[in-house]
């Protein structure tokens, strides 16, 4: 009997050597005449253990990791005799506490098998949501999404049901479903993981969205920085089309949905939905003024649903298990689960899917295990480059949208970037402005000019030129950017700047610290 092994093929596992380990496994098994069935699965998101090798053994999946090329010969010997004695032995993969204690809905299938195998997807309840949706009236699908309390996972947290209702209610020649897969925030990789580990879930969610609002064409706008996700999505779309989940008469029904993958070109601003739409139309990614809402006049002027990858993926759970099931996770107005991404200077970086409401401290300490460097953690930036830097006094804030808004921070797309005590917060504040200057689309003045002036003023503060006066100027500039920018790029860049000044005054010259608002 051949030995069945699983080794992830996703970007992070590969970046840590998984492809070389796979090659070494095949070579070594060949040398020993050992029949090997090596499945390249998706990652489970336990990135600190990658490359994480799993072996089918006595009806269980036994994990080993992180596996190096050098460890392969000894590992194959151990598998044949006494697996538990091997130094990289982790036990049954589902019993690893980091994974066992999560509440995985969207990422339940990640890592279970070959992400491109449709039989695997169906065997793990894939397309169950779509099968139900195919038998429902559009309004009933929208109602289910509304009742689930699902909010947009891209960062703005707008209720998905309201957006869908607007598109359903707006007449249009050709409505569109656009998936925002331009995951540009530093510290985030949940969209990438979903697309690389379970791409059919995204496709299923987009088809359901199409059925709900009457859209027959969808686009996935994927960032060019994700070459592996691109490769996997291209194959997944072809696979879904071959089995008639895409195209005319989906699975023999009278409904149709076509899907196209489009690749971005390295502009962070295209993660903003209206800029993304301009980019999809073949233009510069300039932010549009709202109204009109994209739900009314979006892509090519037509009613358009623009949702993040995880929002569309979550819809499959809502349809499969019901709105109430989904709604029962979470706190307050933040319903369902949040995919937290532990990143930066962290010992156990990876993806943690939990119901809303856990605290930042729980995530970073219990899951993350503290910093990678072993030095004390000092600042945590939540929500990407436009998110606030939080000091330890704020780490007990529960992860929900309103609680974060209450401390003038934001949850965003769930990225958590940890910095140790070597961080220089004045330099981080400067970078926030620098990044905004680099990536501003240039349409509105507060963002285009404000960010450039922001870098200059922070440079003067760092150089101790009239720090109090320049800090007052910087605060004033932040007010202007926040109140006067067209979108979140200029509007939220003040968050990391102000929080750095307010919470970490010791990193700024005397007199230059500031308050949050």
């Amino acid at each position, binding site marked *: 009997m051949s030995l069945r092994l699983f080794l992830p093929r996703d970007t992070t596992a590969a970046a840590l050597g998984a492809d070389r380990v796979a090659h070494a496994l095949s070579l070594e098994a060949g040398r020993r005449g050992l029949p090997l069935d090596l499945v390249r699965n998706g990652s489970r998101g336990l990135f600190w253990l990658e490359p994480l090798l799993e072996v089918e053994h006595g009806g269980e999946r036994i994990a080993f990791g992180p596996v190096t090329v050098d460890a392969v010969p000894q590992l194959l010997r151990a598998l044949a005799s006494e697996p538990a004695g091997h130094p990289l032995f982790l036990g049954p993969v589902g019993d690893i506490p980091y994974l066992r204690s999560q509440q995985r809905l969207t990422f339940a299938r990640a890592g279970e098998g070959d992400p491109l195998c449709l039989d695997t997807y169906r065997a793990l309840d894939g397309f169950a949501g779509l099968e139900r949706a195919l038998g429902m009236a559009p309004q009933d699908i929208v109602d289910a999404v509304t009742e689930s309390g699902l909010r947009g996972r891209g960062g703005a947290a707008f209720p998905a049901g309201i957006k869908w209702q607007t598109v359903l209610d707006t007449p249009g020649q050709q409505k569109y479903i656009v998936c925002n897969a331009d995951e540009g925030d530093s510290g985030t990789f949940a969209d*990438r993981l979903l697309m690389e580990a379970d791409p059919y879930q995204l496709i299923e969610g987009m088809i359901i969205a199409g059925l709900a609002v009457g859209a027959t064409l969808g686009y996935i706008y994927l960032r060019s920085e994700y070459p592996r996700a691109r490769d996997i999505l291209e194959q997944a779309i072809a696979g879904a089309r071959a089995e008639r989940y895409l195209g005319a008469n989906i699975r023999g029904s009278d409904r149709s949905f076509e899907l196209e993958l489009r690749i971005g070109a390295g502009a962070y601003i295209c993660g903003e939905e209206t800029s993304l739409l301009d980019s999809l139309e073949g233009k510069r990614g300039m932010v549009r003024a709202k109204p009109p809402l994209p739900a009314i006049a979006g892509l090519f002027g037509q009613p358009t649903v623009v949702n993040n990858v995880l929002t569309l993926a979550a819809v499959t759970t809502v349809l499969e298990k019901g709105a109430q099931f989904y709604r029962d996770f979470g706190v307050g107005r933040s319903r369902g689960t949040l995919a937290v991404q532990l990143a930066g200077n962290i010992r156990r970086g*990876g993806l943690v899917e939990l119901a809303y409401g856990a605290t930042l401290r729980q995530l970073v300490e219990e899951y993350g295990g503290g910093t990678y460097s072993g030095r004390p953690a000092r600042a945590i930036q939540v929500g990407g480059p436009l998110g606030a830097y939080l000091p330890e006094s704020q780490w007990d804030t529960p992860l929900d949208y309103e609680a974060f808004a209450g401390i003038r921070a934001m949850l965003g797309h769930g990225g958590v970037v940890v910095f140790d005590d070597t961080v220089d917060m004045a330099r981080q504040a400067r970078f926030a402005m620098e990044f905004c200057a680099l990536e501003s689309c240039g349409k509105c003045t507060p963002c285009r000019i404000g960010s450039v002036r922001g870098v200059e003023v922070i440079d003067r503060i760092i150089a101790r030129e009239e720090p109090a006066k320049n800090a007052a100027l910087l605060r004033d500039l932040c007010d202007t950017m926040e109140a006067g920018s067209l979108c979140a790029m200029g509007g939220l860049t003040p968050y990391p700047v102000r929080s750095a000044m307010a919470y970490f005054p010791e990193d700024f010259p005397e007199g230059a610290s500031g308050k949050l608002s």
Partner: protein
Amino acid sequence: MDQRIAEVLTAIIAQYRDVPGGLLPLLHALQEALGYIPAAAVPAIARGLQLSRAEVHGVISFYHDFRSEPAGKHILQICRAEACQAMGSRVLEAHAKQRLGIDYGDTTADGAISLEPVYCLGNCACSPSVRLDDEIHARVDPARLDTLLDSLGDGGAR
């Protein structure tokens, strides 16, 4: 314009002229075929897609990915975003610039390597990250970057 470029251009324009919003996919295809988007291609693209030359130029110059000059044989991108900063990417980028003797946006004199900044490769749990052509590498310190560049053989110019 060189004959080969003209042929590639004609074929690609024909492929995308009727695709809704086809300018970005067209530019990607052209850059994939030629390695860059020659300025001389702009008028033909504009005619083919019924746009003004300014509109085409505006799109090319808006996006970081599109280049108007040929790149080196290999493209090295170093992530400059926060998660990588938290793990020492500033030291890494300084090392890369020093070793290659170039700044961001430049290509080594032997044409082997172009150095570019990138803002997040989605590999943030195992920072710092770099992308060398289409491969992403995790936990890259200066020594590991040297090993990577040395492994290119032709492109390790010191």
